[in-house]
Structures are given as structure tokens and as C-alpha cells.
């Protein structure tokens, strides 16, 4: 009975499928080099941030190793990888910092330089940036 219902539902919503957890598209996660690749990208980005006088002051009182682990998980989830992000929401973690569009773009540039250093192809970089761009509203002006 359940099975036939499921098949019926499947035929109605063709692309959604009937599995409770539809298979995620993890192609971006794989293009980024999975967990090791994402870790190198995040570490490179944070090293660039440390030299970036536009935004480094936001990170002075931060536990960098903890931030790295959270960012790796976040990027992994964003890229469709099999990770669990257990940190605060983006709104919470940026609350009170009054980040501007310029601050956001500065971090984007530090990420781009890190991805260049890792040899990430431009189309792959753009896929990640497009997913991060969609989160911009949760980060700036909180």
C-alpha cells in the first residue's frame, strides 16, 4: 500500500522522487576536492584574511581553529557534501558586526585568491560563489 502510494507520488512529482531523502547533487563538493580540498581552501582563505586589513579586525577575538572547522563544515554542506553544520545560523554569527557590502566582497576576494592558489577551475569557483552570494543577505548588516 505504502509502496503503491509512493509510486503514485513519484509519478506526480517526477523530479522530486519518493525517497524521503532525495540523493543530493554532490558534484560541486567533489569538484572542490571533497573535505581535504575544502579544508585547504578555507585555510588559505583565513590566511588571506589575516593579511587583509579591510576585515582582519573582525577576527581578532575568534578561535581560528574552531572557525576553520565550522567553515569547512558550512562550505561542505553548501557544496552538497555529506557533512553536518552544527554552528550558529549565519544571522547569529554575524550579529552586531554591521558588516557592509565591502566587507563581504573583501572575504569573497580572499576566498577567490585561495581557490586560485589551489588551482580550482573558474567554473567551479563560480558555482561556489553563486551559492555563497545567495547567503549574502544573512551576513551583511546584521
Amino acid at each position, binding site marked *: 500500500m505504502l509502496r503503491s502510494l509512493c509510486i503514485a507520488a513519484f509519478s506526480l512529482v517526477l523530479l522530486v522522487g519518493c525517497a524521503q531523502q532525495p540523493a543530493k547533487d554532490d558534484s560541486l563538493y567533489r569538484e572542490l576536492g571533497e573535505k581535504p580540498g575544502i579544508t585547504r581552501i578555507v585555510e588559505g582563505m583565513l590566511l588571506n584574511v589575516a593579511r587583509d586589513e579591510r576585515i582582519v579586525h573582525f577576527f581578532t577575538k575568534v578561535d581560528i581553529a574552531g572557525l576553520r572547522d565550522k567553515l569547512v563544515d558550512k562550505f561542505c554542506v553548501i557544496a552538497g557534501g555529506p557533512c553536518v553544520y552544527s554552528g550558529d545560523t549565519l544571522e547569529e554569527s554575524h550579529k552586531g558586526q554591521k558588516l*557592509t*557590502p*565591502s566587507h563581504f*566582497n*573583501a572575504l*569573497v*576576494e580572499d576566498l*577567490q585568491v585561495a581557490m*586560485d592558489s589551489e588551482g580550482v577551475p*573558474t*567554473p*567551479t569557483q*563560480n*558555482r561556489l*560563489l*553563486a551559492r555563497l*552570494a545567495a547567503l*549574502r543577505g544573512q551576513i551583511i548588516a546584521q
Partner: protein
Amino acid sequence: MFVAQMTGAVLFGMLTTAAFAGEGRLLVTGGATSLEGAAGGGITPWAVLSGYGEQGEWGADVFATRVETGDYRLDVAGVAAAYGNRIELSYARQRLDLGNLARDLSLPENSLSQDVFGLKVRLFGDLIYDQLPQVSLGIQHKRQKDFLIPSLVGAQRSEDTEGYLTASRLFLGGAFGYNLLLNGGVRYSRANELGLLGFGGDRRDRHSVLKEGSVAVLLNRYWAVGVEYREKPDNLSFAGESDWADLFVGYFPNKHLAIVLAYARLGEIATLDNQNGAYLSVQGSF
């Protein structure tokens, strides 16, 4: 005492201006400078504002452009400044060297010059992030400086003001994974050959609604290739005025330099046809 105070104030102003001269926008999003001084491509403006300033920041450009079409040479130089990613002021001086035409027809002058004063305001939207594309409204006041030849071929006036409305959007990964920049706009103008041949004509003296646009693909953060198109009016009976198009490659090594090389198809200009050739523009941004 007063002089010392003023000097201090000016120095302070310069320092704070330098502090606010921003680079808050991403590379390439300041564009190059169009022939009329507005930030954009080569023959058409984009909706972006000159320089790389975001909210609360200044941006500015200086540029020089040369177009060689065989029979003519166009030289343009100018400056632009923008504040807060909201408003842009620009000035450009254009000089069209008539070369062969002046010699063949024993014209009284061998060049035509004009000044272009521009104002552009971002109305709403954002090039990359907002729900809406970035939309800007611009006006350009043009003063033709050598009106004898234009008046002889039927141009009606040596000064005029025109407006344009333009929209720009960068689609991340929009061209097979590469970033795609689309620009489209309309211009309300009666300028003959940008205004170098005056404004309005014996055939038509009203403003026309003219379409213009461009498509660019960003190969990476530093390189862009694309095409541009600009519709032109046709107000003078002594010669046809062709729509313009070009193929360009732009190089943006950092936020202080941009170089654009293009192959421009300018068609018929003042009776001489097939005016196609090279376009080179160099821009410094601050």
C-alpha cells in the same frame, strides 16, 4: 593662522578622502570607460559606476582611448568620479581627426572636438547580489567645439543634452560555468556621430529612442571578452550614419588598471564607408 588652518583642513580632507577611496566592489565590476566618459564598455555605458567604491566610498577613473578606422582617428580622454556606488560625474573630451576627408575635400578644419559632461545615478538593484539587476539613469550634456563643418552639412545645433537608461547584470556561472555580464539600455538622443557632427539635422531634428547593449563573458577574474552594439540616429541627409558594433577583450590585472582592445565596426561616417578598425583604451582607477 587662517592659512595654517586651511592647509590643515585640506590635508585632513585629502587624507580622509584617501581613506574613503574604496575598493569595496569586485574586480571588473567598475568596468572600463566608454567613449563618452561613463563607466561601461567601449561604445556603450554599463549601469555600473566608475571606480570600485561601495557604500560610503569614493571611486574615480581617468582614461584615454584611441580608435583608428583607416580614414579617421578618434581620441578621447577624461575623468569620472563616483560616490557610494550611487552617483557618477564624468567629463570627456573627444577629438575626431578627419585625416583623409579633410585632405580630399579641402575642408576648413581637419578635426572635430566636443566636450561631454555626464551624470549617472544608480536607481536600484545590484550588478551581482540583489533580486533586481542594477539599473541606472544617465544624462550627458555635449558641447561640439568646431561647429562650422557640422553646420555646413545640415546639423541644427552645437549643444544638446541626451539621456539613457541602462540595466546590467552579472550572472555567476551564467555562460557554461563562466560569469556572464549582460547590459542593455535605451538612449534618447539626436547626436550625429556621438555629437561630433552636431545635434539634429536637415533630415530629422527630433530625439530618437536608440537601443544599445553588450554581452561579455569573464574567462576568469581578470579577462573579459564580448560584443557591443549601439544604434545610431540618421539625421543628416549628406551621409548615412551606421549603427556601431565591436568585439572586445578587456584585461583587468588589478583595481587600478584596465586595458580594452577591440575591433570596431563603425560603418559609414560622413560619406566614408567601411570605417572599421582598432580600438584601444587604457583606464586608471583610484
